[in-house]
């Protein structure tokens, strides 16, 4: 009996340590991306503050955190989320609302945080983390000539062959309406204004339908980020839309693909602080978040992956430290979606548009796919 009670005591101790609010838990998307976050700012932050930072993988969306909240046992502190999720999470009261300039550190020259970040945030619960890009790439061994515009992606006469496009409507309808003649300029709101106009969505979908039904074209739908470079490398398609970081990694591995930046969609990734997470009350989670999103912190992750830090001041650090990539010989700034050569013409992702219309557009998108 005595032995048993001792065992129980020990067991309960172990359990209480394992579940105690000690390490700050950050959930992110896994793979090379989480690796860049962990090495770039997770580990340095943990070392500096003396608060361990744990990384947990998830596949996006708010279902898990909502379930945790409903069950009354929240185990996550910080989440790496899409813009749309910060909006929904903020509305549902899952995330903490920031007092931006107070909660986040200013740039080294004293510029307040809200001015150091490239654009304003989609909701009060979001702080920028990286900028990435939806662009397209081609395999130079399989394409005659050099595609250089978004129009070329839809031009099957000049560049015959199949295309790989994202399985959802997001990104596709923006690209399509650009190719149909709506010039996005430098991130102007014309793209989304035209999409919201009567028949705008149909106009974009008709363009994609034409591409997919074209005997010289045809579509392959991808849903995992690793697929586009793979489909290009094995010759399944001649061009593919995708995320620039994945294309960059494939290029570094020697795959003969070329990225086209014309009319790229600049999209963002955010951190959100979970309200009433295990380290919410004691302030540790906020301290970790502040440190990770500092100028040095955000610049750190760009050492490992070709996604741009949100802060203007982080780019300065990178420029001063080139070659910044972990191999010690690749200059990183030209590979950033925000580099001047890459932003001659670009679309700025509008999360408000997608938060409003996602369900309706998705139904139309699936209905369109059903007729292919």
């Amino acid at each position, binding site marked *: 009996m005595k032995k048993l009670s001792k065992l129980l005591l020990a067991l309960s101790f172990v359990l209480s340590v394992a579940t105690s609010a000690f390490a700050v838990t950050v959930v992110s998307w896994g793979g090379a991306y989480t690796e860049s976050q962990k090495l770039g700012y997770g580990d340095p932050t943990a070392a500096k503050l003396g608060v361990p930072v744990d990384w947990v993988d998830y596949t996006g969306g708010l279902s898990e955190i909502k379930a945790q909240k409903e069950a009354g046992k929240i185990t996550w502190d910080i989440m790496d989320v899409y813009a749309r999720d910060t909006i929904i999470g903020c509305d549902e009261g899952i995330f903490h609302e920031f007092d931006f300039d107070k909660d986040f550190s200013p740039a080294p020259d004293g510029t307040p945080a809200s001015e150091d970040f490239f654009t304003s945030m989609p909701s009060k619960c979001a702080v920028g983390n990286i900028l990435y890009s939806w662009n397209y790439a081609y395999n130079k061994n399989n394409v005659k000539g050099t595609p250089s515009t978004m129009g070329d992606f839809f031009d099957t006469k000049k560049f015959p062959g199949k295309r790989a496009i994202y399985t959802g409507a997001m990104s596709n309808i923006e690209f399509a309406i650009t190719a149909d003649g709506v010039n996005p300029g430098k991130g102007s709101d014309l793209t989304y204004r035209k999409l919201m106009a009567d028949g705008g969505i149909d106009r974009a979908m008709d363009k994609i339908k034409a591409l997919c039904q074209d005997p010289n074209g045809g579509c392959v739908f991808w849903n995992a980020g690793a697929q586009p470079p793979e489909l290009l490398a094995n010759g399944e398609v001649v061009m593919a839309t995708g995320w620039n970081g994945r294309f960059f990694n494939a290029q570094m591995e020697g795959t003969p693909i070329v990225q086209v930046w014309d009319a790229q969609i600049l999209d963002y990734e955010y951190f959100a602080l979970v309200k009433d997470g295990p380290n919410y009350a004691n302030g540790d989670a906020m301290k970790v978040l502040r440190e990770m999103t500092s100028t040095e912190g955000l610049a750190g992750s760009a050492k490992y992956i070709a996604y741009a830090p949100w802060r203007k001041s982080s780019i300065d650090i990178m420029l001063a430290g080139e070659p910044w990539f972990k191999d010690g010989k690749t200059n990183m700034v030209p590979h950033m979606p925000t580099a001047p050569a890459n932003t001659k013409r670009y679309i700025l992702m509008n999360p408000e548009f997608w938060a409003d219309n996602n369900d309706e557009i998705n139904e139309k998108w*699936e209905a369109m796919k059903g007729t292919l």
Partner: protein
Amino acid sequence: MSQEQILSSDGIPLELSLKKAERKNKLRALLLVAPLFLFLLITYVFPIGDMLFRSVDDRMITQMLPNTFKSLEKWDGKELPGEETYEAFYKDFYPLAINKESGKLYQRLNYEKSGFSSGLKTTNRKIKNFEQGNYKEQFMKAHKIWKDVEYWTAMKNTAPNFSYAKYLKGFDLTFDQDRNIVRVDEDRRVHITLWLRTLKVAFWVTIFCFILAYPISHLLATLPMKYSNLLMICVLLPFWTSLLVRTSSWMVLLQQQGPINDLIVFLGLASDDNRPELMYNVIGTFVAMTQILLPFMVLPLYSVMKTISPSLMRAGKSLGGTPLVSFVKVYFPLTIPGIGAGCLLVFILSIGYYITPALVGGASGSLISNTIAYHMKSSLDWAFASALGTMLLVGVLTIYWIYNKLVGIDNIKLG
């Protein structure tokens, strides 16, 4: 009546003492079953009950906008409601906006009609500066959704505490302003297509599995032990491999520059620049799913065939039947319980599949379970996800019921 009661040794009627002893045994048996019963209750009955409840529960919004709904009761739905409805909505929405509690409302109403989210958000910002009176005008100035009858219709449709609207949505139906059930706009009818596609995929995968598994199982059941064990491992080995590994292996095999296509070109069945598409269409879905679900058909068939004595076939032949006749008249009917079990198992599993079709099926790869996952994870419309889940469950139960009517459920055998 006149029969004398039999007494046990202590004078109590035998019948009573027997009952008493039996009661103890019954109680003990119940206690033994209790853990399993509790387990089923907690992991099965409660979650499914919760799912059913969620799919019809719509009380949250009624509690948030009581005045508005009361005022909307009198509204005919033809033109924009009058000033008093706008005032009622102001009375409901203003405290929510001040206390920052309006967020859930955006999401709930945006499921009903796209555009509510940003409209309400803008209104939320502006409502703090509203002046007394003339609310209709101020709302219409704040955002254009308040000039649109359709948004009021959508709001009125959310009034009942419990509603089956989500089930209608699952069949591409909706309410119009007079609460008649009508079909949704043509370019948004997607769910019926998805249901039919899901059933079609499940049906064909079951057929292909059956055609492939029957001879394999027969071979397994009749071969000598030392060969059949080896074969059995060949059947089971893929069964133990991760689903994603198997799916991606098929992607490697089936791609246009892949080994299967190379073989087809080598054999001269197709020219090199005109390789057939084996993936990103229904062929890919059928091939990969059939291979993945094959063991679920082989195992029940095998275990039933194993029990069929070989002497029965011999008897059939010795009574003058050709091999074909004795197979059709003797062997096949005896395997029906296994066929039933295998087909039900494969059909039910494939109706809920979505990762494999999404990866190898291309445009045809999105099935009803993908939509459920989307509403669970992305849109957070759990009520609609629950409704679709319930519909899937009812579908499976219907198939079970039909099977029971046609074949009889006692005729099912897993081993």
